[in-house]
């Protein structure tokens, strides 16, 4: 029995010619596979970055950051304290934005859970949170370049500046608020009417002189 099977196997092996594979074949195969994988990941990442860059910021333009970058430009050569002030302002904006985001986080989560906002808006919110974290890291690294160990007092200081500036903005907006409220409530009691006619003494004196001359 065993003899017969051996003879059939050898007959089968004899009928199929042996395939010769070059040493390069697996290498080329791996290279193609790798290059395909790399191209896919590059294209995928590029698409993702493009999509992320198209997402609009919740807050609009970050002016303090742009001003800091503008001042950092070697062409300007500003005083060191101007740069420090610009960095503080940049951090103040980051503190303000983070506070606003934390304030609105429960609302975003609730709306998302209830299906009232889509994935895109919730993702926009999450990206904004991550961006603020990165912004803080960058600012702390920057502040260490001006003075070593400043980062420990830097954040509490910017928080104080943030609150003080908000208070000033609120007080300075009072006049505009008064105007809009008076229009809203149709109340003009606080407004003093300007004089209807301004008497210019010099003009009236000239006219009088001309009249006298004419009569003469």
């Amino acid at each position, binding site marked *: 029995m065993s003899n017969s099977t051996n003879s059939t196997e050898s007959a089968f092996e004899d009928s199929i010619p042996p395939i010769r594979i070059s040493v390069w074949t697996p290498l080329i195969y791996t290279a193609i596979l790798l290059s395909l994988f790399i191209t896919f990941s590059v294209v995928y990442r590029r698409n993702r970055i493009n999509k992320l860059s198209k997402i609009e910021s919740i807050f609009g333009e970050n002016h303090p950051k742009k*001003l800091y970058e*503008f001042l950092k430009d070697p062409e300007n050569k*500003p005083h060191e304290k101007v740069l420090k002030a610009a960095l503080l*302002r940049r951090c103040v904006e980051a503190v303000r934005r983070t506070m606003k985001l934390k304030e609105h986080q429960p609302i975003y989560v609730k709306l998302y859970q209830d299906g009232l906002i889509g994935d895109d808006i919730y993702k926009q919110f999450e990206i904004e949170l991550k961006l603020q974290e990165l912004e803080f890291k960058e600012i702390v690294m920057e502040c260490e370049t001006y003075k070593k160990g400043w980062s420990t007092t830097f954040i509490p200081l910017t928080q*104080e500046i943030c609150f*003080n500036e908000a*208070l*000033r903005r609120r007080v300075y907006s009072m006049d505009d608020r008064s105007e809009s409220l008076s229009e809203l409530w149709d109340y003009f*009691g606080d407004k003093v009417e300007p004089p209807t006619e301004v008497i210019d003494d010099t003009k009236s004196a000239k006219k009088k002189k001309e009249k006298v001359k004419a009569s003469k």
Partner: protein
Amino acid sequence: MSVAISYDPKTKKLVVPEDADISSELKLEIDQLNTLTQEIIANGSDVPPVPTPENFNKDMSKMIKRLYESGVQAFKSGKFQDSAKQFSIGIEMILRRHKFESFQGTLQELSLFLMSRSDAYLKTKEYLKAYNDSDMLIGMMMNTPDNFLRRGVANFFLGNYEAARADYQRGLAFDENNDRLQAELTIVLDKILEENGDYL
């Protein structure tokens, strides 16, 4: 940056040409940055100190206190217009404190001045201004029944009777035995009835 902003090394400020068309937000940012720069330079130290009650500008506090006392004096002698002016100057001075000074200290000073100025405006019958001051006070210190009384009175004279009623009732939620609030509430409830052509 598309707008022609330049740095002036003499004044150490960012300068925008007068005819430049810039957004109000950017203008505000530039102003805030210039102010902070001047304050840091005036402070003299390498980096601004951490705000504490100890490094709160004491000289400024004395001047502000003096202004407050003169305002109160004018109020007591019946010169309400002068008193409101004094309080406004005091508020302007408080806002000129360095931005890196203690926020808590600034807030306390400001609330004192706003309270007094609101009272002065109520006396001079500038109800909208009084409303604005008391509204800000409520935003700053929520649990003070007197501030609800101030805003309620301002609302009453502005003709917002329902808002005045709400203010008095909120004030009473913090202090239910406040006689003045109770009396004002009765007046405004009568007024609301009168407005609706109704009576008790």
